[in-house]
């Protein structure tokens, strides 16, 4: 989220519509990551995620004048465009229909690779990578509307209100979709989701 010294999204969008290159670049840099990650979580393919980013911003260039601040935020407007492109991609490619448990589709997480912090053992790093891949695979297997909520809230840290604006639905809908999605993920991940650090039930904290 931009800090107070940076121009607001509405201001950047207004300047973009006036032909300001720098405003467009600033808006792009601010929003391309969430859009890219959302598209990657939804499609599982970096090439598709790149295509969604490009198409979403091209649509914004052509139709940005249609944005109405009374109906939502510029980010929500952009996410709406991205969702439409994702939906078209998913419909045109049956590979992204929810998968069976034993499918051997390899999910690549873009630039992700085996990564582990200083002091961690290789086995911890491998376990972390395995967990990441299993999470991505499990998320990809969710129905699209659950996948959207998990991508924004659980994988990108959107709060309920921001996710609701991005998805164009009430906050209650986001909460209920998240609850249902998390139940499904617990069931999918239960056998192999051995935590790197077992949580302490006394403290009750996961981090």
């Amino acid at each position, binding site marked *: 989220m931009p800090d107070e010294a940076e121009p607001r999204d509405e201001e950047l969008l207004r300047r973009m519509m006036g032909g300001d290159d720098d405003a467009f670049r600033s808006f792009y840099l601010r929003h391309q990551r969430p859009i890219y990650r959302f598209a990657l979580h939804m499609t599982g393919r970096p090439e598709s995620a790149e295509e969604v980013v490009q198409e979403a911003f091209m649509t914004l260039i052509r139709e940005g004048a249609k944005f109405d601040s009374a109906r939502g935020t510029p980010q929500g407007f952009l996410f709406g465009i991205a969702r439409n492109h994702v939906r078209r991609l998913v419909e045109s490619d049956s590979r992204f229909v929810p998968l069976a448990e034993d499918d051997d589709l390899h999910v690549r*997480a873009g630039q992700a690779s085996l990564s582990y912090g200083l002091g961690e053992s290789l086995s911890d790093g491998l376990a972390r990578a395995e967990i990441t891949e*299993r999470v991505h695979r499990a998320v990809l297997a969710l129905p699209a509307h659950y996948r959207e909520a998990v991508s924004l809230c659980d994988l990108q840290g959107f709060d309920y209100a921001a996710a609701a604006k991005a998805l164009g639905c009430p906050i209650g809908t986001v909460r209920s979709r998240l609850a249902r999605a998390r139940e499904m993920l617990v069931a999918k991940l239960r056998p192999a989701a051995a935590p790197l650090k077992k949580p302490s039930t006394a403290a009750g904290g996961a981090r």
Partner: protein
Amino acid sequence: MTCAEFENIVHELARPDALDKSAAVRAKFHAQTCERCANRLAQAQVLALAFDEAAQDAERLEAPAHIESALVSAFREHRRSLERNRHRERRTRLRWLEWSALAAAAALLLAIGAWNFSRPRIEQTKRNGRAVVTNPVNSNANGAAPQTELVETVTAEGLNTDFVPVPYGESLSPDDSGLVVRVSMTRSALGSLGYPVDEVHAGDVVQADLLVGEDGLPRAVRLVQ
């Protein structure tokens, strides 16, 4: 807290600061007394941890740099295209204005010409060697029948005097074009038409123009000098 209430908040409970303190305390107390809910909490915490790992991994994910370059180029091209369209529209509007102004000027000229053409005027045409005069139709201020106007014209035959209306005749009607007939007559005959004649030259033969109506009756006479 009931198990159903606990289940509603278990995933928030698995994340730090997602719940207010009092709700968190009550939920944790419930988990300590309910094995099923304690297992649910453990599962939610495992899931939250897995999400954290995946989210950290995704921190470095972004669209490649070439997409930014391509989009900025597309933005500039779109802006140029809009400027060209605006320029084209401006030229089309100006052209319409020019044509409209020309059309308005032409219409004005036509209107002036038509008005000028419709104005009444005296014209003289020759028919069979006789001078035919079309008199203008004018009514006096009281709206009385139009009177024959006396005109002085220069013809090929010579200078004429003004027409003198015959004393007993009606004036020409507006629809009556009238006819000027040149005749030879004695001065005394002129006198019967109301033209002043002196007795000395009463027998002289003179040429006169008679303004004759469509009924054949003279309305006015003038002497041809």
